[in-house]
C-alpha cells in the first residue's frame, strides 16, 4: 500500500505563487501584452510582492512538508525575504535598461528572473541533496540565459559561453560528490546523512564526496580557485543581471552551503575548516589585488565581489553560531550595498551611452552631485568603514573569528580591507578630483534614482543602528554551528 504523505500547502505558498506568476507572465507576453516592457515588469513585481505577503503567515513557523524536501524555519524565511527583495529591486532597475537596449524577448527576461528567484528560494529552503541540485540548476540555467541577453554583443556572448561551460563542469563535479555521499551513507537527506556518519570514523569516500561538492559550491559563490569566470561574466552580462548575479545566486549558494555543512557534515568540521581558511585567504587576496588595476567598473566590482566572498568564507572557517549570524548579516548588507552601486553604474552608463569605464565617472560630482555623493557612501561602505552598514558585516564575522582564536585570520581580513580601500577611494578620486570630459549634466531615469535612495538609506540606517537586522540574523541562525 502506497502511503501518500500529508502535504501542507501553505508551506510552499510563496514558491507556488511565484511559479504561477512566472508562467502567467509568459502567457501574458504571448497573448495580450506583446513585448510591453513596463506592464510585464509591474506584473512581475506584483508576483514578487504577493510571494512576500505569502511568507508573512509563515513567520515563526517551524516545519517541513513534501517529505523533508521543503523546510520552513526562520533561516529559510530570512533568505526568502532577502531574495524577493533583491528580485524586486533588480526588476525595477531592469525596466529602463531593457527599454534602452531594446532586448528581444522582454517577457522571457522577467520570467527568467522570476524562475531564478524561485530556484534560489528552493535552495535556501531544503535539506535534501536532490532538491538542492534542482534549485541550483533552476537558478543557474536562468542565469546563463540572462547573462547572454545582449544577443548582438560579442562580450555578452562570451560571458554566457564561459559561464555556461564552467557552470556545467562545476555542477558535474558537485554531482559526482553527491553520488558518493549518497552511496556511502545511503541517504540524500542531510540530517539522516549526519546520523549515518555518527559513531563511525570518517569514511574516506564520503570525505572525497564532500570535497567534490565543496568544489562545485566554491564555483557558485565565486571563491578562489574557482573564480576565473566571475570577471568575464560580470563584465559581459547586462548590468542589472550583473547586480543580480553578484548578490542573488551567490547568497543562495551560501545558504545551501550552511545547511550542507552544519546539518550534514559537522563530523568533518576539522577537515573542511582548513579548506575554508585556505579559500578565504586566497579569495581575499586575489580579489583585492586584482581589482586594483581594473579600468572597467563592472570588472572591478567583480573582483571586489570575489574579495567579499572571501570575507564571508572567513565565517565558514570559524564555524561558530556567532560566525553564521555574521554571515547572514554580511550577505544581507552586501546585497543592499551592491545593488545600490550597480544602480549608480547603470545611471552613469545610461547618461554616457553604455560607458562602463572608470573614466565615465570623471568629474561626476559636477555632472550629477547626487550620484557622486551616494557612490562615495557606497564605496566607503564596501570598504567596511563607519558610519555605514559595511562596517557591521565585517565586524561581526571578524569578532567571531577572534573569539574562536583565529585572530590572525581576522587580522588578514582587516589588512585586506585596507587594500580594498585603495581601489574604492580611486573611484571617489575619479568623481571628485578629475575633470569631466563633458560639462553636460547627466540625465538618467527616475527608477535608478529611487533604487539608489532606497539602498543608500538602508546602508546608512543599518550603519547607525544595526540592531534590528542583527536580531533577525541571530534568530535566523539559531541551531547552526
Amino acid at each position, binding site marked *: 500500500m502506497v502511503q501518500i504523505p500529508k502535504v501542507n500547502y501553505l508551506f510552499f505558498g510563496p514558491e507556488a505563487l511565484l511559479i504561477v506568476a512566472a508562467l502567467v507572465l509568459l502567457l501574458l507576453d504571448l497573448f495580450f501584452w506583446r513585448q510591453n516592457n513596463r506592464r510585464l515588469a509591474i506584473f512581475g513585481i506584483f508576483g514578487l510582492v504577493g510571494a512576500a505577503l505569502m511568507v508573512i503567515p509563515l513567520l515563526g513557523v517551524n516545519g517541513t512538508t513534501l517529505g523533508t524536501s521543503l523546510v520552513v524555519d526562520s533561516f529559510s524565511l530570512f533568505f526568502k525575504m532577502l531574495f524577493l527583495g533583491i528580485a524586486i529591486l533588480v526588476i525595477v532597475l531592469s525596466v529602463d535598461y531593457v527599454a534602452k537596449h531594446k532586448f528581444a524577448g522582454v517577457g522571457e527576461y522577467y520570467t527568467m528572473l522570476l524562475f531564478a528567484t524561485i530556484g534560489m528560494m528552493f535552495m535556501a529552503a531544503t535539506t535534501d541533496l536532490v532538491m538542492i541540485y534542482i534549485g541550483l540548476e533552476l537558478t543557474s540555467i536562468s542565469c546563463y540565459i540572462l547573462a547572454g541577453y545582449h544577443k548582438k554583443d560579442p562580450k555578452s556572448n562570451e560571458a554566457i559561453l564561459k559561464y555556461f*561551460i564552467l557552470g556545467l563542469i562545476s555542477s558535474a563535479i558537485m554531482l559526482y560528490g553527491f553520488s558518493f555521499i549518497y552511496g556511502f551513507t545511503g541517504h540524500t537527506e542531510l540530517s539522516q546523512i549526519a546520523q549515518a556518519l555518527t559513531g563511525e570514523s570518517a569514511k574516506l569516500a564520503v570525505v572525497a564526496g564532500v570535497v567534490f561538492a565543496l568544489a562545485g559550491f566554491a564555483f557558485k559563490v565565486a571563491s578562489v580557485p574557482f573564480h576565473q569566470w566571475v570577471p568575464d561574466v560580470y563584465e559581459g552580462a547586462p548590468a542589472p543581471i550583473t547586480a543580480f548575479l553578484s548578490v542573488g545566486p551567490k547568497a543562495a549558494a551560501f545558504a545551501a552551503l550552511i545547511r550542507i555543512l552544519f546539518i550534514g557534515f559537522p563530523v568533518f568540521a576539522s577537515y573542511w575548516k582548513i579548506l575554508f581558511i585556505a579559500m578565504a585567504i586566497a579569495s581575499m587576496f586575489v580579489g583585492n589585488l586584482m581589482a586594483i588595476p581594473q579600468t572597467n567598473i563592472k570588472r572591478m566590482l567583480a573582483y571586489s565581489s570575489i574579495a567579499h566572498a572571501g570575507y564571508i568564507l572567513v565565517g565558514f572557517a570559524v564555524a561558530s553560531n556567532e560566525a553564521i549570524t555574521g554571515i547572514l548579516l554580511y550577505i544581507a548588507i552586501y546585497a543592499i550595498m551592491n545593488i545600490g552601486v550597480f544602480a549608480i553604474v547603470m545611471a552613469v552608463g545610461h547618461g554616457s551611452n553604455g560607458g562602463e569605464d572608470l573614466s565615465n565617472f570623471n568629474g561626476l560630482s559636477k555632472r550629477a552631485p547626487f550620484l557622486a555623493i551616494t557612490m562615495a557612501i557606497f564605496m566607503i561602505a564596501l570598504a567596511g568603514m563607519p558610519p555605514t552598514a559595511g562596517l557591521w558585516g565585517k565586524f561581526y564575522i571578524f569578532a567571531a573569528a577572534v573569539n574562536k582564536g583565529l585572530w590572525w585570520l581576522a587580522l588578514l581580513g582587516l589588512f585586506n580591507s585596507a587594500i580594498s580601500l585603495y581601489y574604492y577611494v580611486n573611484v571617489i578620486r575619479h568623481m571628485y578630483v578629475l575633470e569631466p570630459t563633458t560639462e553636460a549634466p547627466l540625465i538618467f531615469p527616475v527608477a535608478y534614482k529611487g533604487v539608489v535612495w532606497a539602498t543608500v538609506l538602508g546602508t546608512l540606517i543599518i550603519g547607525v543602528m544595526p540592531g534590528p537586522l542583527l536580531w533577525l540574523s541571530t534568530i535566523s541562525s539559531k541551531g547552526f554551528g
Partner: protein
Amino acid sequence: MDITLNQVLILAAILFSIGTFGALTRKSIVIVVMCIELMFNAVNLNLVAFAYFSGLEALRGQVFAVFIMVVSAAELGLCMAIAIMLYRNRDTIQVDRINMMKW
C-alpha cells in the same frame, strides 16, 4: 561472472575522467558539452549502481538520476542555442577563439 559494485564505480570513474579530460582539451563547443554529458552520465551510473547494490532507499538514487537526465537535457538545448548565437556573431564555435576578455 557477476558484476560487482566496485567494477561499476571504476567504470564510472574512468568515464568521469575521460569527460573531464575532453572538456578541458577539446576546442569545439559541441564536443566540449558532449564531454560534460559524459561526466553527468558517470554520475548517473554511480547513483544507479549505488541504489541497485545497496537496496537502501533504492528508489532515491534512481530518481536522482532521472532528475539529472532531465536537467542535462535542458542544458543541452541551451548549449545548441548558444552555439548558434555564437556562430552568427563570431563565425566560429571554437572556444579558444572566443577570447575578448582576459584578466
